């Protein structure tokens, strides 16, 4: 039986007239205090539909109630910049990159759905971030994914990882967006809480920027894209805002949405044609909290009111009532504000793309969001009360008791490799590990070529997309995060992630310009997690201020914990850089013999939180590598300038696994061996993860020029050796051979890391 539930519809009139009654606010994730505040705002109890709106809009996921007051620092400490066209609070930040182009980019989490249903969870994560970019008026041009899973050999990882990767592959490939990079890491802390962070970048003309604002009373509200079904109802409030564990898990299973990338592709092309035709006054994508979120944010953003006929929403399941329609997270939907005279043209373009479009309401000047259901009023609220004035939780933050002990348990006592055989064994351990190994098992499932503008993708340091075919203008993007560093010191760890992404972008020859972030943490109700969070935010805000690049937006994902065990704090930082001419970009590999290999930056014995300490000894303790953002700035400037002058053949940043892994990767990426001599203590020099370093391969005829450039900039530079041959050959300060691995063997070890586990 289908029933519209009309007889049982809870109306505003009934709520105003009727006596108070028990409402399921707690099951919807609202506290008693929050419920009382709704009653106070409305001057009566909310209707079922209104309760639905407040419950999703005031959820942690939508309201950022635990994080908002901290995130303010990104704005307060933002360096003076004239490149930011739209910033925090919009669907995505927009940056002016010159030559009449702007880019918009953002990274967002889809962690919880991806654990419950890896394929669809990850797929819809891609779909959601792409619509965020589309809603800014931009053409999405590339995606990236930062992925973290439990131990690579754990049975559940074999359920989650292949599902996530094929979900991203399915959705992104079918959408026609090149996947140009990302991360893949493993740690036991992610076993019940994988991190699936999806990034999208889009391009627009600055004048075409669109905002989520319903302006102009009388303008029509059009819902277009897929029909609305019972997908993910309450996903935002129930799924993303509570920890896993206990009896609730089974009940959450149906809350994951199902994606249709074909519809999204049509929606992308349809929207771009609508923008081109000048038919859109304001636009918002429908993601978490669906129609509830889009209507409240559009009306609040425009400072207007809106009248919506909920019964006009096209349904896939006729039994849905008003509250369910409001909360549904059905994918591939957008909402546009259109002037009455343009409605016919708008609908015609939608029809051309076979996109269903329906006028469901109009903008009003009342300052109220009003909704009807078959003629009866079911919603009448001030939109800002749901969209902007959500509750703020001043959560207590306390440095964990064990933090000092963790810092004190440094890596000094760890047995370091001494003999040549031990050094070589440790190098191969790292290079052949799931963390340090070849990622082709994953990246070969992603299309990196579509659209024909990919100048760099995996395994290079950053993805690079050409924007202008004539001038060669392009943008580079990298994401980085390191849970181990952040566990030891969330402030420094976050700055190290920022520094690494900054360095990666510069290693292609692009000048870093702006920052996005996806802050993955445990439960904010745990003061220790809150301390990690506040430290990370402070670290990022201070770091961006010092590097002179603004945070343009981001996403917070709390409740990444199972039971009482939170994940390691894992802020994932995305840096966007502008490349003046992608034709001059350099790759990360040694592509020819006879190049001089130079190590830029200072190497200290910094093994705290290192991949070596973790993989060789299962050790995590001590301090992470020291942060020196001035050194990072200098290094980036040297790299960008040398690449623009054509002095370098390759550049590769040093990070996880230090020089050992970087040299191996450079040999493998370019197919050429190398011979280097270490200037100091081999174990520390090979595996230390000191920040602010990169290796570059300098063309022989440019060696003097490059040395002079480093000298005059004050950049520390150490000549290590030369490219050439068919092995990775490393000798000690005394000239004795320490490592000599044929590239065939190195390739075999590197390549088997994931196939050996995942087939």
């Amino acid at each position, binding site marked *: 039986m289908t029933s519209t539930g009309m007889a049982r519809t809870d109306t505003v009139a009934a709520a105003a007239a009727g006596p108070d009654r028990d409402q399921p606010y707690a099951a919807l994730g609202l506290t008693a205090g929050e419920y009382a505040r709704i009653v106070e705002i409305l001057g009566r109890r909310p209707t079922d539909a209104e309760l639905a709106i407040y419950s999703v809009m005031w959820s942690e996921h939508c309201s950022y109630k635990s994080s908002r007051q901290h995130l303010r620092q990104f704005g307060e400490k933002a360096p003076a910049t004239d490149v930011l066209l739209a910033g925090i609070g919009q669907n995505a930040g927009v940056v002016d990159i010159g030559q009449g182009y702007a880019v918009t980019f953002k990274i967002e989490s889809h962690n919880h759905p991806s654990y419950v249903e890896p394929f669809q969870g990850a797929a819809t994560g891609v779909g959601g971030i792409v619509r965020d970019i589309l809603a800014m008026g931009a053409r999405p041009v590339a995606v990236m994914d930062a992925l973290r899973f439990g131990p690579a050999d754990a049975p559940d990882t074999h359920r989650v990882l292949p599902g996530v990767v*094929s979900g991203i*592959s*399915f959705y992104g*490939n*079918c*959408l*026609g967006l090149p996947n140009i990079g990302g991360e893949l890491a493993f740690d036991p802390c992610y076993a019940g809480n994988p991190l699936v962070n999806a990034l999208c970048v889009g391009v627009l003309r600055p004048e075409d920027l669109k905002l989520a604002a319903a302006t102009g009373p009388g303008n029509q509200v059009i819902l277009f894209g897929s029909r609305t079904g019972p997908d993910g109802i309450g996903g935002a409030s129930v799924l993303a805002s509570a920890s896993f564990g206990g009896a609730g898990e089974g009940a959450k299973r149906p809350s994951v949405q199902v994606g*249709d*990338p*074909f*519809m999204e*592709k*049509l929606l992308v092309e349809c929207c771009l044609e609508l923008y081109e035709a000048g038919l859109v006054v304001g636009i918002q994508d429908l993601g978490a909290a669906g129609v509830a979120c889009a209507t409240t944010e559009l009306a609040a953003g425009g400072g207007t009111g809106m009248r919506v006929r909920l019964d006009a929403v096209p349904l896939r399941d006729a039994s849905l009532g008003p509250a369910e329609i409001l909360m549904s997270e059905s994918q591939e939907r957008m909402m546009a504000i259109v002037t009455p005279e343009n409605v016919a043209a708008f609908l015609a373009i939608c029809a051309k*793309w*076979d996109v269903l479009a329906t006028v469901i309401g109009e903008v009003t000047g009342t300052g109220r969001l009003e909704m009807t259901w078959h003629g009866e009023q079911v919603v009448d609220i001030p939109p800002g009360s749901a969209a902007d004035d959500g509750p703020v939780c001043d959560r207590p933050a306390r440095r964990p008791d064990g933090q000092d002990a963790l810092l004190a348990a440094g890596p000094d006592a760890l047995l370091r490799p001494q003999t040549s055989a031990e050094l070589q064994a440790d190098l191969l351990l790292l290079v052949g590990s799931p963390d340090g190994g070849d990622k*082709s098992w994953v*990246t*070969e*499932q*992603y*299309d*990196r*070529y*579509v*659209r*024909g*503008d*990919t*100048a760099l993708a995996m395994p290079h340091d950053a993805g690079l997309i*050409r924007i202008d075919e004539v001038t060669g203008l392009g943008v580079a993007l990298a994401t980085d995060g390191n849970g181990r560093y952040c566990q030891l010191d969330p402030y420094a760890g976050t700055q190290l992630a920022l520094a690494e992404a900054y360095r990666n972008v510069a290693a292609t020859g692009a000048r870093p310009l702006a920052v996005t972030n996806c802050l993955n943490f445990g439960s904010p109700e745990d003061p220790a997690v809150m301390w990690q969070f506040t430290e990370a935010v402070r670290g990022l805000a201070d770091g961006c201020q010092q590097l002179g690049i603004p945070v343009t937006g981001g996403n917070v994902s709390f409740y990444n914990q199972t039971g009482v065990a939170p994940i390691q704090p894992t802020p994932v930082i995305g840096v966007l850089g502008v490349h003046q001419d*992608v*034709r001059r970009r350099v790759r990360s590999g040694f592509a020819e013999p006879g190049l001089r290999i130079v190590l830029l930056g200072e190497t200290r014995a910094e093994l705290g939180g290192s991949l070596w300490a973790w993989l060789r000894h299962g050790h995590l303790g001590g301090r992470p590598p020291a942060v020196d953002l001035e050194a990072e700035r200098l290094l980036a400037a040297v790299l960008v300038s040398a690449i623009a002058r054509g002095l370098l053949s390759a550049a590769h940043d040093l990070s996880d696994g230090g020089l050992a892994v970087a040299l191996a990767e450079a040999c493998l990426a370019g197919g050429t061996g190398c011979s280097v001599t270490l200037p100091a203590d081999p174990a520390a020099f090979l595996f230390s993860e000191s920040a602010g370093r990169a290796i570059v391969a300098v063309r022989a005829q440019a060696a003097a020029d490059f040395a002079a450039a480093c000298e005059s900039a004050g950049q520390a530079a150490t000549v290590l050796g030369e490219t050439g041959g068919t092995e990775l050959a490393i000798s000690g300060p005394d000239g004795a051979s320490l490592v000599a691995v044929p590239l065939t063997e190195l390739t075999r070890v590197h390549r088997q890391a994931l196939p050996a586990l995942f087939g």
Partner: protein
Amino acid sequence: MTTRIGVVTFPGSLDDRDACRAVELAGGQPVELWHGDTSLHGVDGVILPGGFSYGDYLRCGAIARFAPVMAALIPAATKGLPVLGICNGFQILCEAHLLPGALTRNAGRRFVARDITIRVENDTSAWTGSYRISQQLRVVLKSGEGAYMADPQTLAGLEASGQILVRYADGNPNGSANDIAGVVSEAGNVAGLMPHPEHAVDELTGPSADGLGFFVSALKAVAQA
């Protein structure tokens, strides 16, 4: 006069823009064709690009084969119009019975996106005339249903009549019969390729510029016709 090569956009086509760029780099004029077109607008050749036409629901290419533009394309192709189907376009040509055989799920059951080497087996078709037999080309493969299959008789016929256009030369990435990466019609004008030559037209954005020859070949074939 510049040779005009039509590139069809179906709902869900993705590599249409890349195909247009390849035609342009080869010296031709790309003409955008829409799936709902009932005419080919007098183009000299047609490319069906890669992607997921109509979401590839039902079966890859099965719905696109019935698009209005195909009603114009099929008779033109049988009369000798150069037609190239790349990836999804190849699947559409098989569904339309302009080419024999079918593309099935990769042997490894996963999507495969990889730089590969193919070997030219036929250098007289409308799309390979500028290559030499045995020439090795570095191009891009990206498909989930790229395993070429046909019954033994059909395969033997294709081999005997020189209709194998290109073969995988550095391992068989998807389980295709006889390592087949592309085939051509008996008349030599309708070609299907699973790899993507349009992604290999420029060293900056592709693994090589080896793929340009397919487009150059078609322009030459049109000029000589």
